């Protein structure tokens, strides 16, 4: 598999898996407005995921469409980071996961918008406008909950701490990252860590919360989600997401 194909799958899978998670909030949001907002973010991500996977299919050159890639790959072929597959938990959990992801997502898209690959630059330029809004929204909630009631503060802190170990994978380069960075196709993810820490750090401070510490970073030893090593949660997510195509192959709307 070429480095570029591998990388496009990672981008697409992050979006698709997180979109599916956010979709689980349909009908369960704390208020109607939030229910709609969360799933809007999910739909934004799904749209971006489609673009990445469609391009991945073309790069692969075996005639696979974005649908084939999304609905007919098993969990070990999925290349998303573990962070995005973790269960929704309570609202603070969902927001903490989103907060960590949105910030690195935006930094990544800014860098990809300058990619030497024209198609990648184009998709990233389009996506970053949507993600700029996601960043605002999740940061807003972290501040509201952190600087809210005693209960919301406690839960928000717990959520930040809980997802923290999964953020290491976002910034750890492997051979694919290094090759693409050399060619100017994508940034070396380790260069995103400092700006990410600065960005989330100021929000966490405003929210009167404490930055989690600890260097133990989940998902690195055995390669992490980028190499198809996932938590036990991804399989369940996919079984629901892929059910229709598995049960009724080729069926469409």
């Amino acid at each position: 598999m070429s480095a570029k194909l591998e990388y496009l799958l990672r981008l697409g899978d992050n979006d698709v898996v997180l979109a599916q998670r956010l979709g689980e909030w349909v009908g369960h949001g704390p208020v109607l407005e939030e229910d709609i907002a969360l799933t809007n973010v999910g739909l934004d991500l799904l749209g971006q995921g489609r673009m990445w996977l469609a391009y991945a299919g073309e790069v692969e050159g075996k005639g696979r469409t974005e649908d084939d890639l999304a609905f007919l790959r098993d969990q070990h072929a999925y290349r998303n980071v573990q962070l995005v597959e973790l269960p929704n938990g309570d609202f603070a959990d969902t927001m903490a996961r989103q907060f960590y992801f949105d910030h690195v997502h935006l930094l990544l898209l800014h860098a990809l918008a300058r990619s030497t690959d024209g198609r990648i630059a184009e998709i990233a330029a389009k996506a970053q406008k949507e993600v700029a809004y996601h960043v605002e929204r999740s940061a807003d909630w972290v501040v509201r909950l952190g600087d809210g009631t005693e209960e919301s503060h406690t839960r928000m802190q717990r959520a930040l701490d809980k997802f923290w170990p999964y953020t290491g994978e976002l910034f750890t380069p492997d051979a694919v990252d290094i090759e693409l960075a050399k060619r100017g196709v994508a940034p070396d993810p380790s260069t995103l860590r400092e700006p990410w820490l600065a960005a989330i750090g100021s929000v966490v401070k405003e929210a009167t919360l404490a930055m989690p510490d600890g260097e133990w970073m989940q998902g690195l030893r055995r390669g992490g989600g980028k190499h198809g090593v996932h938590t036990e949660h991804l399989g369940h997510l996919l079984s629901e997401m892929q059910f229709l195509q598995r049960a009724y192959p080729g069926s469409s709307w």
Partner: protein
Amino acid sequence: MRTEWPLWEIFIRSQHGLAHKHVGSLHATDAEMAVKNARDVYTRRNEGVSIWVVKSSEITASSPSDREVLFEPAASKIYRHPTFFPMPDEVKHL
């Protein structure tokens, strides 16, 4: 503890419209959140270029029982209504 969020009335100016139009209402804890929620609830299909939010409690409404006092006089003065102009058949959508 009061758990219900305040209600906000949402006004959107559409792509070609000159004025903001009332489109509905929603709940939010403050004005900033109301704008964000309005964006998500009411403008996701390119409906608008500008959003106004107004706390519903800040709106003073006419009372339904005042309807006759306020609006009857207009109905009885037919000369106020432009109904006496013959319209050419070619003119549609009137």
